């Protein structure tokens, strides 16, 4: 584990150095003061190291400029970022204040009332504990630990392990919103899978929907020991509404030797949200990370799950779909770093742009000097549904060894008239025909999801195609 840390630091140092070289701007006033951080820390009963960590992160946040690429975040009131941080006292949204189109979407997706309130951040405790309860027994018997991160930090069985891992994979220096996260993070899950344990049933973050803290700065930490297997599912198709409008979450995944982790996400943040999320996996020898990702909501998204292949034979697979509709600017993709010999990566992404939406696929595949014998294949396909939308593909491959085998292909186009006519000739209306084609287009992701999620995702696509999503 110690060696891994150093290698991670190696990668990060270059990022850190580079940013400071370029930093000629004055630091931005943040509106976050040490007092607010201390308030959060007190509320949570943080250990000293965590308190220090939060304060240091705040400093880094203040000094770090915003990146110079990607969608504009001018709608985010950066100078008053404190307004986005909801401590306990500010957490209760009134159901009456939840926008109508959000409520309508819940209606159309058939979400039960109690869940709706929970999804909308209304203080009500949704008793997902009931659903989880049955699963919990099986999980506990296997030795898998699945609990909320804050409690785990105060649990003497896990405190040390968490301390060693917390924000080492995504340090606060990584980028401005990682620093913000480090300062104000709240809530989230901790999962530990012991050596040799294979959990066949997927763990769902949905179970912990209304655990302590609002979901917007939640931190997920998953550690898989050697030879283990886990499938973790994050999110759900129902829109998550936060009045505050900023989600700066962080996911850190440690995949041990010969272990496999499948991390599935359907993100459907409400359309006022700025989703600046950071997800990263460190994969050891023979290990494998499988990302399955469906991005549907939010006003602006920055989302590039990163896989660092740090041991011989490590593998990463990324399957994703992004649907950018009206008023959305979704900048998504993936980053893969090949840092050891015989590593392999595979990416299959699709994107859809409609009604003026902007979808950008942004990726980086780096094959380092130490990664001889590595292979990488990236395939991305974009579908434009009309003339007012945008779709950009910005991939980068940086290869530093001759013994690598890297391929990349990208395509962009529209739904063919021929295909629409064919479906219409079988009785589907033009609208239905297009929805069916788009669902088919998205099947790279839906076929990787458990059935109920795939069905939800298809419903979501149907609603997006009709333009009736909130």
């Amino acid at each position: 584990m110690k060696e891994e840390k150093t290698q991670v630091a190696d990668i990060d140092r270059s990022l850190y150095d580079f940013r400071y070289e370029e930093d000629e701007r004055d630091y931005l006033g943040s509106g976050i003061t040490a007092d607010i951080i201390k308030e959060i820390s007190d509320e949570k009963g943080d250990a000293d190291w965590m308190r220090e960590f939060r304060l240091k992160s705040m400093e880094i946040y203040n000094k770090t400029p915003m990146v110079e690429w990607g969608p504009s975040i001018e709608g985010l009131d950066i100078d008053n970022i404190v307004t986005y941080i909801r401590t306990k006292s500010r957490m209760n949204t009134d159901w009456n204040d939840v926008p109508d189109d959000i409520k309508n979407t819940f209606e159309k997706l058939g979400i039960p009332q109690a869940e709706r309130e929970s999804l909308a951040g209304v203080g009500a405790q949704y008793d997902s504990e009931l659903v989880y309860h049955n699963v919990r027994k099986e999980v506990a018997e296997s030795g898998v630990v699945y609990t909320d991160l804050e409690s785990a930090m105060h649990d003497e069985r896990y405190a040390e392990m968490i301390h060693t891992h917390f924000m080492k994979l995504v340090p606060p220096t990584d980028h401005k919103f990682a620093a913000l996260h480090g300062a104000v993070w709240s809530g989230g899950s901790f999962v530990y899978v012991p050596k040799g344990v294979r959990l066949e049933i997927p763990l769902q973050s949905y179970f912990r929907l209304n655990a302590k803290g609002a979901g917007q700065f939640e931190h997920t930490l998953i550690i898989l020991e050697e030879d283990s297997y886990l499938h973790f599912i994050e999110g759900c198709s129902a829109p998550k509404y936060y009045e505050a409008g900023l989600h700066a979450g962080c996911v850190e995944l440690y995949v041990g030797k010969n272990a496999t982790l499948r991390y599935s996400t359907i993100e459907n943040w409400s359309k006022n949200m700025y989703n600046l999320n950071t997800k990263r996996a460190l994969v050891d020898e023979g290990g494998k990370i499988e990302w399955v990702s469906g991005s549907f909501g939010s006003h602006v998204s920055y989302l590039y799950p990163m896989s660092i292949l740090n041991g011989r034979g490590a593998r990463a697979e990324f399957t994703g779909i992004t649907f950018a509709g009206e008023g959305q600017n979704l900048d998504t993709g993936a980053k893969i770093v090949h840092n050891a010999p015989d590593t392999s990566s595979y990416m299959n992404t699709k994107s859809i742009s409609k009604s003026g939406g902007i979808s950008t696929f942004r990726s980086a595949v780096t094959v380092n000097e130490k990664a001889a014998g590595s292979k990488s294949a990236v395939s991305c396909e974009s579908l434009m549904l009309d003339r007012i939308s945008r779709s950009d593909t910005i991939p980068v491959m940086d290869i530093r060894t001759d013994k690598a085998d890297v391929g990349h292909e990208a395509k962009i186009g529209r739904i063919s008239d021929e295909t629409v006519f064919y479906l219409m000739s079988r009785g589907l209306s033009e609208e239905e025909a297009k929805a069916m084609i788009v669902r088919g287009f998205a099947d790279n992701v839906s076929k990787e999801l458990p059935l109920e999620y795939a069905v939800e995702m298809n419903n979501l696509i149907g609603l997006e195609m009709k333009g009736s999503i909130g």
Partner: protein
Amino acid sequence: MSQLLEIKDLTAGVEEKELLHSVSLTVGAGETHVLMGPNGAGKSTLGSVIMGSPEYAVSGGRLFFEGEDITDDSADKRAKRGIFLSFQNPVEIAGVTLSEFLRNALEQVTGKHLKLWDFKKKLRSCMEILGMDASYADRDLNVGFSGGEKKKAEILQLLVLEPKLAILDETDSGLDVDAVKTVSAGIDEYKKRTGGSLIVITHNTKILEALRVDKTHILAAGQIAAEGGAELVDEVITNGFEKYIKGGK
């Protein structure tokens, strides 16, 4: 007493060119019609125009189905009325299985929600008639299908959807002898079950051997050059289309 399908002075084409010139044709309920002609005559075009393909623009004439003017109807509306086109080169649709697609189509056309179990039973029995392996149902629609498999899949759809009028565009082309037999059996079954009408577009005649032809139309250079009964088919087999190409305007 109105005919099932009535085409009156239909003129249609694409941006650069007029392909059908004042074509008139009627098809009665339960009848089997054959549309033949040399390559490039406009047979497929006529089939597509009857189905409502957006590729072609109708610049003159009208189309009537069951006495109602359908000239301005979109393709799905025509499908709901009971018109079906078996395509010459069906498109592939990735991510949508044959079964899922057909169930959707059947629900559209009948306007009724179908229980999954009932649908699967129906699908299976239709697949058996065509000697299609059950695994095709879960394959993505037409993806990776050979020419013959695609044609069979079209006839499968014909059997499941049971339209009032089926236009078969070169369904037999590219099929081997056994495949032609199977497809013919499928068409036969369709007729038996529904008593529907057929317009068989072809320029060879194997597929007609099993059918009782009521009327034959010869299309050449976008116009009806001749019409007759089943005997016209034999005449064409013997003498070819020459006299229609030279004689027809």
